[in-house]
């Protein structure tokens, strides 16, 4: 009965539904894209490494001068060794010292990041080699003049390939390429991870950077569950080694991958919610459209309502008829909107090469919400129809 009434006025039904279609479609698309972005960020963070903790120097306060991380040099190679040696639950440690230098190979040159690392670096970062091998602990101890290069560096210095085994000069230090890394892509901060030359940290400290402080320490915990414990242990050990009295501020910062993930997660969640919120407004507008058209419909069909009342329809029957009409409108619009939203998110995903995660929850939510909109905005017109006086309604022209 309700469907037939809607069929009678196809154009109007379509236009009314369009409001719902756009509203639901927008919500689905926005939530999908937001979820997609979230998953992508999570993947990037996972690509940092496995069960990884980062220890940065800094975060100190002395004589009223205060500073956050990297504000002061406080981490030493001995600290790193102590963490590796003394703490259970620690699988591997890589001391890190970074610099940026010009690198020359034949007639090519390239300015890049030189990362001084321990031999466990690739294991911690879960970064496989494409060719060759990583330097071993013996080479680290000997401060060997060897390096492992990222894809970007390999391409820039050796455009025609064959980088493995070649000699390059980092500033004035000759260095042999013993390994080439697989491509890793963008870092969570948007930098190019493959634009890197990894050398033993000993080589870096002695030959290239001429200092003894570390920029960071990469620590791998045995398992994910161990991360919080290891985080505490590192803090305790380093405070002891740095002679920090109880109540004094740490002169280092320990960050776990989880911390970073949580921050990024919070950001993408806010973005998703914001997008969904804006899209919900159009859903609301769609609902008001339904109410509008239902009110018009009730007025237009006053005579029909009168006839139905005269032949014995109760107020309830009339109300149900108009409610069902409104719900049919909104749910049909909702379902079409879900299809549209999924379509849009797939399209955007394909175009931007980002994953679109259309969750069952968001589809179900949108469906239920559109039904609720139908009930909510259909209720007033339906009640108005059911309360008409049969005599008045029959007299209506």
């Amino acid at each position, binding site marked *: 009965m309700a469907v037939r009434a809607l069929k009678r006025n196809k154009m109007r039904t379509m236009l009314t539904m369009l409001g719902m279609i756009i509203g639901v479609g927008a919500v689905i698309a926005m939530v999908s894209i937001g979820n997609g972005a979230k998953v992508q960020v999570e993947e990037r963070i996972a690509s940092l490494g496995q069960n990884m903790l980062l220890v940065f120097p800094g975060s100190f306060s002395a004589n009223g001068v205060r500073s956050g991380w990297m504000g002061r040099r406080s981490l030493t190679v001995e600290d790193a060794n102590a963490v590796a040696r003394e703490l259970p639950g620690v699988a591997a440690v890589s001391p890190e010292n970074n610099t940026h230098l010009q690198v020359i190979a034949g007639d090519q040159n390239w300015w890049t990041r030189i990362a001084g690392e321990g031999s466990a670096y690739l294991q911690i970062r879960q970064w496989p080699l494409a060719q060759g091998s990583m330097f071993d602990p013996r080479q680290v101890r000997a401060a060997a003049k060897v390096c492992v290069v990222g894809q970007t560096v390999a391409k820039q210095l050796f455009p025609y390939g064959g980088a493995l085994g070649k000699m390059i000069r980092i500033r004035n230090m000759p260095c042999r390429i013993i390994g080439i890394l697989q491509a890793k892509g963008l870092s969570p901060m948007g930098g190019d991870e493959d634009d890197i030359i990894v050398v033993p940290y000993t080589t870096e400290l002695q030959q290239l950077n001429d200092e003894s402080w570390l920029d960071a320490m990469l620590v791998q915990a045995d398992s994910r569950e161990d991360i919080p414990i290891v985080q505490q242990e590192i803090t305790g050990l380093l405070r002891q080694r740095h002679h920090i009295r109880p109540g004094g501020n740490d002169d280092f910062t320990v960050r776990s991958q989880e911390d970073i993930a949580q921050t990024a997660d919070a950001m993408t969640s806010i973005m998703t919610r914001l997008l969904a919120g804006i899209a919900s407004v159009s859903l609301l507008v769609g609902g008001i459209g339904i109410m509008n058209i239902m009110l018009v419909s009730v007025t237009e069909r006053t005579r029909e309502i*009168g006839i139905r009342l005269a032949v014995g*329809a109760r107020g309830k029957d009339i109300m149900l008829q108009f409610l069902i009409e409104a719900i049919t409108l909104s749910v049909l619009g909702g379902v079409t909107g879900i299809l549209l939203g999924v379509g849009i998110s797939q399209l955007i995903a394909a175009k931007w090469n980002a994953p679109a995660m259309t969750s069952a929850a968001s589809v179900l939510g949108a469906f239920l919400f559109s039904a609720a909109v139908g009930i909510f905005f259909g209720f007033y017109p339906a009640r108005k129809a059911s309360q008409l006086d049969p005599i008045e309604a029959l007299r209506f022209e």
Partner: protein
Amino acid sequence: MNAVIQLENVHKTYHTGDVDVQAVRGVSLAVRKGEFVAIMGASGSGKSTLMNIIGCLDRATQGRYLLDGVDVSQLDRDDLADIRNQKIGFVFQGFNLLSRTSALENVELPMLYTRRHSPGTERHERARRALELVGLAGRADHHPNQLSGGQQQRVAIARALINDPALLLADEPTGNLDSQTGVEIMGVFQKLNAGGITIVMVTHELDIARYTRRMIILRDGKVVADEGVDRLNADEELLRLRQAHEAAQLA
């Protein structure tokens, strides 16, 4: 005696602003089963108001109304709807069919609102029989805009009969029809009445009232005359009209 309608000192007062309008002022009457009654009166005589009260579309402000033995003067909105559905069949001046809905579905309409739900096949079957009764068996799938005025009124009569009501209530049923079609419709009513159906009809046309058996005349909300009618037979009258028409054509 089995009265279908029993009105006891019924009053109806409308409040419009500060003025009280007394539309019906103390009407008492009884209509027995199988009667064919015309309620007549000029406009403003209160006949429409009385008709609405008899039809359970409205309630009397004072007095008692027994319909088919049930006191309906104190029932609420929903109960009145059920009474209309079960005991009364309406035929209106303007036909009041649902447009863009087939004749068959129009006839089925009251059955959609009965408490005891009947299956679709039973509904179709009964609606078809009702259409046959009014001589429209072949037009079940036509929409109202494909039917003539007389045919539309026949559909409306079929709709009124579908739930086997105790009372058929007609409000100026011939008002929108030409005189010959009007007589045809009166013929349908006479046939139904002969079959035992109680009919109350409101009209202001004496010509039409002459096809009934009893005439009640209202003036200023009161019954001023209630008498039997020397009934005209609609079929004979129709024949006479046709002959006159042919004679006019010949001449």
